[in-house]
């Protein structure tokens, strides 16, 4: 049996989502059309609206409805510290700590040598300009502790240091409330390796 062309198109369009194969996309399409037409309407409208209105903030590169996002506009924030993160979700997590009050820069990715994701894909030119605005005096590298995140931090660090900017990397080690008995060997060995003197 052939499904209508429009339905086929919807099913194949849904497959652009990560982790969605032919089976899931068919299930989603039928659900939207049969059980939740209102939800489908809302989804379509929101998608279109987001595509039309969202762009990257001129300062931090995060998604924003305006040229400058609300975090960058906030005059109460510390303009001298700039924290570099991989993704908007990382920014959200840092905000949740309520202990950082500086500015951000979102790379929207990481250097991934094996996948061919290079400096042009993570907006390094924009970051360089941002870090050299004259008011920023410390850049904090908060990329992930994966090989790719480490490589990203290293090269950004080199670039900024060669331009006379102070650079730091977030620390790593045991989690809060972490018991040595239950921590994985990798975390424990880096915690040992990067131990600090008791003052």
């Amino acid at each position, binding site marked *: 049996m052939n499904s209508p062309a429009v339905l086929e198109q919807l099913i194949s369009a849904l497959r652009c989502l*990560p*982790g969605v*194969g032919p089976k899931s996309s068919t299930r989603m399409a039928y659900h939207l059309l049969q059980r939740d037409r209102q939800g489908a309407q809302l989804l379509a409208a929101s998608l279109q609206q987001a595509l039309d209105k969202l762009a990257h903030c001129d300062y931090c590169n995060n998604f924003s409805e305006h040229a400058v996002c609300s975090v960058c506009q906030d005059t109460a924030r510390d303009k001298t510290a700039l924290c570099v993160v991989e993704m908007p979700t990382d920014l959200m997590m840092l905000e949740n700590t309520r202990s950082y009050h500086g500015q951000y820069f979102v790379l929207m990715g990481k*250097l991934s*040598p*094996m*996948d*061919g994701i*290079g*400096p*042009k894909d993570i907006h*390094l*030119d924009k970051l*360089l300009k941002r870090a050299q605005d004259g008011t920023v005096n410390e850049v904090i590298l908060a990329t992930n502790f994966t*090989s790719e995140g*480490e*490589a990203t931090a*290293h*090269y950004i660090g*080199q*670039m900024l240091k060669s331009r006379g900017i102070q650079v730091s990397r977030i620390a790593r080690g045991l989690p809060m409330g972490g018991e040595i008995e239950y921590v*994985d*060997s*990798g*975390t424990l*060995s*880096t915690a040992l*390796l990067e131990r600090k003197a008791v003052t």
Partner: protein
Amino acid sequence: MAVSKPDSGSHKQSQQPVFILHTYPFKETSLVVEMFSQEFGRIAAVAKGARRPLSAMRGMLQSFQQLAGTWSGKNELKTLHDLEWMTGLTLLRGDALMCGFYMNELLLRLLPRDDAHAQLFEYYAQTVQTLSTLQQMPDSQQLAQIMRRFELKMLQELGYAVPLTYDEHGEVIHANESYRFEADYGACAPSATRHGVLMQGSTLLDMARGDYSNVVTQAQSKQLMRYLLQHYLGEKPLHTRQLLVDLQGF
């Protein structure tokens, strides 16, 4: 009565020494892990649920770290059950880390699946170890020499002949003569065709001895390895090399 399957039927391999070369997302929460194992060569296995936030395997899925892997399966794509820590921490940083990525990309591109190369595995493990013990800022020549040795060893172990001490006619290489090195043939007379790379006999002899102290040897061995790798890799460029070129622009 239920009969339990014999172990040989499930093709289970336990506690095998492996290095992770690369991982990529698979389905919603899983990963495909490309590994280089000591006894079975390059292997791809699915790590189910490894992308879940609290996955026990997450902390173990580190490249450049010798691990003990347990997997099963008869097909090309195996199922990864467990990874364990085998040696102390080998942490690659900065340019040494980029060299690590470069080696991994070479292995992914040139190493056929399920083809054991125990000696290459040993050499890779040794090279990773060497890279991890370098100081924070190794000079680029030091890294280049480590890479030249690895490239040569890899090509030789994979069965690509790179004869360095005799020419295409089986004559001994003379240090003071010039040669044209051509892939699949070796050192030839410097005239004739445009294929291959021109070089001094001394470069070939130095490379055979693993001695890269001479400046001419450093430059010419780099040209030779680049030419040979390109010959065996084909048209598609190496991502890691391109990344380094792009980074130079900043």
